[in-house]
């Protein structure tokens, strides 16, 4: 075992870079492992996935070694062994090997989180034991019979194959696929492009077992390659479908399904013109291998960016937007005066085109911040797989809408609340198999995780088909806790909403996976902090659905400005359903709480004056009502008047007072100065709570 470091490595810049790079590799490995588990159905292994995993483990080993994290490097080395065993067919692609890989990935992730970079002796011994078990089971496993059925394959080719390539060749033969040799010559100065094009088109039709330099009488300026290909196509079909002049296909072994004449040659394209391409200037010939080149290229295509840098960019864009507004009003002033109207017109045109470009820029920067939810969903799916294994509970997690994108910051903050809800579902909601059977449900429990975009919001649903929430039990518990009166009149929804109250648990069971049932209040708190809202619906015996509604981004918003007394507030337009002028006689009261009838439904009202301790408007004055909604809660905010719409970058408020309920932050709005932005989610929730408390 490598020397253990005693000191905790300082989290310096280099370490941070290491950590973020390793996180990326682990993320990739997790995704591939999960795909591998899915694709394993027929007991066969997707060679492409296994190879990718092998490459990931290899890079992990490399960079861990480079940064001196020898524990990680060791583990990565073991992963390589296992993966090598898998792809070479020495190890059965069964659950034990995959579970071990899962575990090693998680162990590495844990080391990264703890900042140790090294493994505690106990955990290491455990992993070592697992590795030994796998190696032992591999030894006991009889190696697949090496049928010497390699007839028809040139001995010169067989000699050139690596162990892995030969293994793939045998596998392909066993699967009854045809083996062909595709040969082509390339200009030496541009062979990379030509070769990768050829490889690409062949891959669409089969597996490239090996790429070999081919001997042959080609001109000095050219280089010749042959690709050993396993495919279902016969030689003629392969030849006709490779759209590359100068490529020849030679059949070596016919597939079992479609016999062809061994040794027959077919031209690859109808017109075998010379494949001559001018080397583009600046492109130099490379001596190293093709796969090396490929991997270097793929790295340079993506750039990791610190989210704070994006914030800075976003701020700059925000400031530009404000200045753009100032230019707009200057143009208007110039236009208004006949003496300067000409210049005003010019400026106005410039302003318009600036506006268009700024909008594009803004959209571009916002887009960079967006990441698919898949990352979080995959983490959850891993957790469920592990729980399933550890607890032996048969639960399936269905994931939909992983492509739905959200601001990176929101996605990060969302992981914990989602995890909590999924664990609750796994642990408490889904009944034991026996109970399910007697309830006439399928033995396998189901949790559905689904995301979809709805306007400027993303809705995420976690639905289970478990026992559901018993409203009567919730009522009792809430009453015991003193949250409600014994005889409180509550709708079903209001009762269910009580599970978000602190301290309220729907089960008395305490488990390791989801703790004491505390935490739905924390879930709601976290989601509210993101400007979102969370709701629950449940049918006893049928299941429970938890619905998260979140804004797509926190960075820049369209805001409606309103006047209240001598102040001005901005309301995120994504939460505004409509605005209206209201005659005060239309406002009714019920138990002292004001409401309005809107399209036949009562709409509760909150006066921002009262909310924020500002002077009320004179009695009888017409007021404006801004109807805001989040999820299915509606609230009418009463203000003095509405002004206009602005683009706003919401900034946190710095200083000794950390948070003000009802205020999300502030924004700078050019001429209007600094304007506070309302936190509609908390206002709506407070209004709902007051109703409950009433």
């Amino acid at each position: 075992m490598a020397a253990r470091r005693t000191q905790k490595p300082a989290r310096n810049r280099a370490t941070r870079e290491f950590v973020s790079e390793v996180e990326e590799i682990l993320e990739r490995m997790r995704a591939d492992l999960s795909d591998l588990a899915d694709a394993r159905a027929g007991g066969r292994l997707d060679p492409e996935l296994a190879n990718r995993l092998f490459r990931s483990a290899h890079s992990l080993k490399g960079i861990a070694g480079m940064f001196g994290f020898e524990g990680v490097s060791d583990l990565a080395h073991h992963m390589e062994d296992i993966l090598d065993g898998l792809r070479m067919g020495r190890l059965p692609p069964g659950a034990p090997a995959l579970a071990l890989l899962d575990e090693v990935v998680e162990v590495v992730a844990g080391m990264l989180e703890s900042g140790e970079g090294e493994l505690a002796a106990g955990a290491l011994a455990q992993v070592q034991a697992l590795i030994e078990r796998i190696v032992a089971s591999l030894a006991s496993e009889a190696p697949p019979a090496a049928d010497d059925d390699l007839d028809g394959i040139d001995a010169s080719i067989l000699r050139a194959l690596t162990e892995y390539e030969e293994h793939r060749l045998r596998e392909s033969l066993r699967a009854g696929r045809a083996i062909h040799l595709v040969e082509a010559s390339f200009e030496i100065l541009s062979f990379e492009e030509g070769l990768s094009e050829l490889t690409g088109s062949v891959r669409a039709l089969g597996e490239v077992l090996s790429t070999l330099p081919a001997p042959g009488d080609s001109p000095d300026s050219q280089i010749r390659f042959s690709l050993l290909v396993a495919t279902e196509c016969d030689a003629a079909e392969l030849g006709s479908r490779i759209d590359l002049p100068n490529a020849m296909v030679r059949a070596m072994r016919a597939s079992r399904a479609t016999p062809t004449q061994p040794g027959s040659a077919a031209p690859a394209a109808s017109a075998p013109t010379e494949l001559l391409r001018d080397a583009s200037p600046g492109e130099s010939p490379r001596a190293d291998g093709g796969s090396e080149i490929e991997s270097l290229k793929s790295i340079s295509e993506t750039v990791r960016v610190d989210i704070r840098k994006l914030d800075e960019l976003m701020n700059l864009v925000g400031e530009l937007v404000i200045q753009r507004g100032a230019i707009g009003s200057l143009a208007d002033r110039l236009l208004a005066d006949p003496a300067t109207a000409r210049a005003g017109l010019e400026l106005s045109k410039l302003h318009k085109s600036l506006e268009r470009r700024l909008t594009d820029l803004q959209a571009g920067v916002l887009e960079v911040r967006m990441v698919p939810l898949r990352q979080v969903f995959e983490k959850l799916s891993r957790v469920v797989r592990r729980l399933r294994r550890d607890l032996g509970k048969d639960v399936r997690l269905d994931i939909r809408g992983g492509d739905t994108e959200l601001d990176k910051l929101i996605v990060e903050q969302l992981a914990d609340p989602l995890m909590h809800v999924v664990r609750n579902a796994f642990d408490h909601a889904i009944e034991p198999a026996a109970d399910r059977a007697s309830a006439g449900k399928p033995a396998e429990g189901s949790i559905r995780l689904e995301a979809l975009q709805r306007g400027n919001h993303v809705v995420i649903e976690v639905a289970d088909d478990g026992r559901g929430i018993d409203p009567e039990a919730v009522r009792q518990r809430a009453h015991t806790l003193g949250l409600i009166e014994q005889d409180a009149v509550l709708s079903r929804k209001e009762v269910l909403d009580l599970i978000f109250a602190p301290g309220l648990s729907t089960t008395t069971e305490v488990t390791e996976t989801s703790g004491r049932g505390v935490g739905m209040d924390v879930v709601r708190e976290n989601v509210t902090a993101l400007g979102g809202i969370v709701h629950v619906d449940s049918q006893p015996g049928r299941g429970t659905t938890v619905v998260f509604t979140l804004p797509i981004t926190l960075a820049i918003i369209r805001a409606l400005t309103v006047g209240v007394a001598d102040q001005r507030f901005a309301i995120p337009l994504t939460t505004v359903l409509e605005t209206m002028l209201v005659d005060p006689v239309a406002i009714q009261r019920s138990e002292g709480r004001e409401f309005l009838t809107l399209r036949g439904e009562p709409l509760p009202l909150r006066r921002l004056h009262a909310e924020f301790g500002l002077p009320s408007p004179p009695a009888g004055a017409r007021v404006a009502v801004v109807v805001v909604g989040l999820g299915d809660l509606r609230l009418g905010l009463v203000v003095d008047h509405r002004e206009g719409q602005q683009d706003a970058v919401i900034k946190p408020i710095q200083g000794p007072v950390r948070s003000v309920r009802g205020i999300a932050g502030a924004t700078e709005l050019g001429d209007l100065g600094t304007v506070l932005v309302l936190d509609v989610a908390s206002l709506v929730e407070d209004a709902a709570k007051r109703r409950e408390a009433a």
Partner: protein
Amino acid sequence: MSIEIGALGPGPFEELARSAALHGQEPIESTSERELLVLWLDDDPYALPVERVREIVRWRPITPVPRVPAAVRGVLSLRGEIVQVIDLRLRLGLAPSLAEGRRRRIVVLHGDDGQMTGLLVDRVSEVLRLRDEELRAPTGRDAGTVVALAPQGDRFVSVFDVDRVLDLGVGA
């Protein structure tokens, strides 16, 4: 616009208070110099360590914020950052200033956690350089916001503990 966190902990103040309290009882070896920004409320001079001062800006309209302690006058935007402004007069329990005078300044401070806060004062005069042994213990309350008195000419300047000034007793 990076803000060094950690380098500006409460350390200097405790030291400052200690050297003020100890003075006259024990020989003090340290002859380290301090730089204090002198500011005024009415005709009384106060001071705070310059290393906590980020910048000084002229009085400008402040956007009021609801649901905060009265000493918080509101927020203003400082090159894209939104900063709370504490009225030092109200913070110390003095009557509010009647005129928003031309000389009023907002002293922008680094907080102990990288957050900025503006401190509204009547005026700012100069930077005072002095040695630790020149400090005297404060005459006010033990747990007040002033931790030392610093001589200036024939009178004393009250030296603040910035973190105590910024502690409004609201949830962190």
